[in-house]
């Protein structure tokens, strides 16, 4: 497995999942910043690059999909990996159409996650911000 360390932002309201993800990503050498809600992320995230976002879909308050829409609207094109406790096909399709890197259903295997993260980090190029993603 090729390791390309970068910054991974984890946003999940479930503390246990959040901490597990943080540990796993750190163990493979990523820098990890985790947040309990969309608001926390928006307020406290650092400006590291390359970066990607591991985002829980269902959260009280602002959901993961909402956050992603807001970020896009603000011109931020950070790659996103959606994770969800229950997934259904329409939701996954919607997420992928909107440019998500991957859509993972909990519980997911570490290989699947790490692969998705690597892909995401690979997509994130400094200076890309404001440009549409390559097709």
């Amino acid at each position: 497995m090729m390791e390309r360390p970068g910054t991974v932002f984890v946003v999940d309201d479930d503390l246990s999942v959040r901490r597990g993800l943080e540990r796993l990503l750190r163990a493979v050498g990523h820098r990890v910043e985790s947040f309990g809600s969309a608001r926390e992320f928006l307020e406290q995230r650092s400006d590291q690059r390359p970066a990607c976002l591991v985002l829980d879909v269902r959260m009280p308050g602002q959901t993961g999909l909402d956050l992603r829409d807001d970020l896009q609207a603000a011109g931020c094109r950070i790659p996103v990996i959606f994770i969800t406790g229950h997934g259904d096909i329409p939701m996954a399709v919607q997420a992928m159409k909107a440019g998500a890197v991957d859509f993972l259903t909990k519980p997911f295997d570490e290989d699947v996650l790490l692969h998705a993260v690597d892909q995401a980090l690979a997509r994130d190029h400094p200076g890309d911000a404001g440009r549409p993603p390559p097709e």
Partner: protein
Amino acid sequence: MSGEARGEDMEPTGRTDPTAPLSAPSVRQIVSAAIVVAVAYFAGANLGALLRFPPATPSVLWPPNSILTATLLLAPTRRWWVYLLAALPAHLAMPAPPDWRESLILVLYLTNCSEALIAAGSVRAFAGEPTRFDTLRRMGVFLVGAGLFAPFASCFFDAAAVSLLHGDAYWEVWRTRFFSNVLTEMTLVPAVVLVIANAREWITGAGVRAKIEAALLALSLVVVGGLYAFGPRAIPGAPVSSVALFLPVLLWAAVRFGPAGASLSLLATALIAICGGMHARGLIGKMPPADGVLAVQISLSLCAVPLLGLASLIEERRRDQQDLTRRLTFEKWLSELSGAFVHLASDQMDEAFETWLGRLGQLLALDRAALLRSCQSGGPFIVAYTWAAPGIGPIPRASVSADYPWTVERLRREEPSIVSEAVDAPVEAGADAASLRRLGARSMLALPLVAGGRVLGALALVTVRTHLVWTAERVGRLQLVAEVFANALARKESEDALRAGEAMKSAILSSLHSSVGVLDRDGLVIATNPDWCQFPPHHAVPEGLGANYLDACRQMAREGIPLVAQAVPGIASVLDGSRVTYSLEYSCGTPAGERWYVMTVVPLHRPEGGAVVSHADVTERRRAELEAQRSRQELAHVTRVSAMGELTASLAHELNQPLAGILTNAQAARRFLEMTPPDVRELRSILVDIVEDDKRAADVIQRLRDLLRKGEFQMRRVDLNGLIRDVVKLLGSDTVIRNVLVALDLEERRPTIVSGDRVQLQQVVLNLVLNAMDAMADSPVADRNLLVRTEHSDPESVEVLVEDTGPGLDKDAEALVFEPFYTTKSTGMGMGLAIARSIIEAHDGAIWVEGKRSRGAAFRFRLPLAEEPVE
């Protein structure tokens, strides 16, 4: 002689009033009476003419004046003129000596009338009762007024007329007429009056012995008369001694036959003596006839005074004696009457009332007697018991209030009422008198029967054949009778009421399907219904009447029967008043298999305390309940499973969350282990998280299992707040998925513990919350608020409110939401709320939907709080 003279003295307690007209006599009756008077006057004048010593004008014995006097005594004063006028033609027609001028005859008529008027007037004025000679005072008034004063006064006019118009010597005429008229008045008037007044009664009423004695007396008079007329003539001292000859017979008559006997005997003696004297026979034969007659007149008149006085005195004594005897008889009768009713049971009283009414009627020689009852105050008087003399029709048994308004009015005022045909009857009693006449009755006395301050009825006494005068004394005595009847009637009423109450109680007891026993304060059985003794659990101990149920139960408790040990304090607590009611459901093996009973103990609300214990067989009900419970459980299970289907997404999330945590952490741990050196601190912390997540997953599964369990109904103490929190936790992810904001407002100050089945109550909350969330499925995301609140609506119960901000319910839906299979959802079964209701009702609670809301729907249910656990 006079058609108006009636004097039946048929009844022993008093006399009827012969002067009271039963009805106004008809003209025909008056005319025929006048003719009788005229005939009698004419006959008397002829007799008087025979007994005359011509040329002297006055007769020796002159009956016409006395006949007039007797007539005037018998007739009412307002008709005196009729009879006086009737005598005029008789007077004019009488055989007069040829030398009498018509003027003399007319004047003699006037003097005769004057004598009769003076005599009758003085007796009426001073004796009161003109036809009675039964007291010494009345006889005295008669002797002085009619016997002496009337002839004395009238003789002056008579003598003056005769001496002027006929030329007789004044004093000669006066003397002859005076002595003649004195004797006639004294002997003839009482004889005529008493014969007319009493003859019919004597003939019908007197005993055979009295009649034989009267015959012997008459025979003795004939014998003595014969002796007087034809006997030896040499008795010295004649003619006075000649009267002495009659004296024993006269005394006999006076003593044994009263004024009537004395006066009749005196009349006979006078006739015999005067006839004897006139024909110069008998003991006065040796004297000149005029002197002899005068001697007879004087001696007989002198004799008449003490004889009649004696007779009246004896009569008076006899009457007093009779009155006394009668009073004693009556008092004895009254005491028998009271005695008869004292110990009589109320069901025997009907017969006794009729019997004693009859005895009273016979005692008073009445024709009808009746006892009327007035059941409520102011109610109608209804004839309840009657008696009628043989040959007299009975009083019809009906209400009499309408026919006798005046009588009823008086009875209600507790006053006696007398209705009769007498002229002095009150005008207001006109309707009553008319009703009485329709019954063919002549007089009626009605006495109120008063007891306990209430008019219970009336005693009505009626005469048909006679006209009875209801004297105050008689009414007073009859009021004593009425009092006895009233007390008996009051006792009968209360005993009947008591018996009716007893009968009703016994009928109610017998009709009960439960075994019912009534205990007194100490636990003694004082009443049971027939089922009580047949009651299977009672076979072990004697609990019949008089046994002590509580002691029997205590004994069984000591013998170690746990159920009875449980019941004893319950029964005792109701008996001592520390508990309002007690009930216990228990099962009991019987030959017919196991059966279920509910024992209920309720207090007897009376001063002496006690309780009613009933054992009701509830086996069938219980079976039905168990059946219903089982069906409900099955249905509930089905709906729970289907609800779970709806929740799958949420549940998956709920489980996947910890699973994801565990997997991620475990994989991270593996990497930390591979490091050199392994990060032990991180590993430890990972393990802690894994354990937590595992527990979390186990909790979810446990809650699911709880909800899906196909459990038996178990009554436990359940904290509603905790239960609601669990349900909300279970639905937590679902609420997140559905974007519903759940708010809990739980009562924390006081416990919200109810008694019930946890799974079933959970289901109620679950159904309500799911229902609310479904209702908000189409609402804007920002407006999906769910509120669950617990509160104490009253000290005995707790209420749970589930409120949403959905579209709410329309009026029709409000009425139908709890009906099975009612649904507005395309996927629902329509059973959720119906099941919720059946569960809540099985827990003695209530569930309803709040109406009239501007938005959203609110469901509430209320459950009784569990009793504090008894230590």
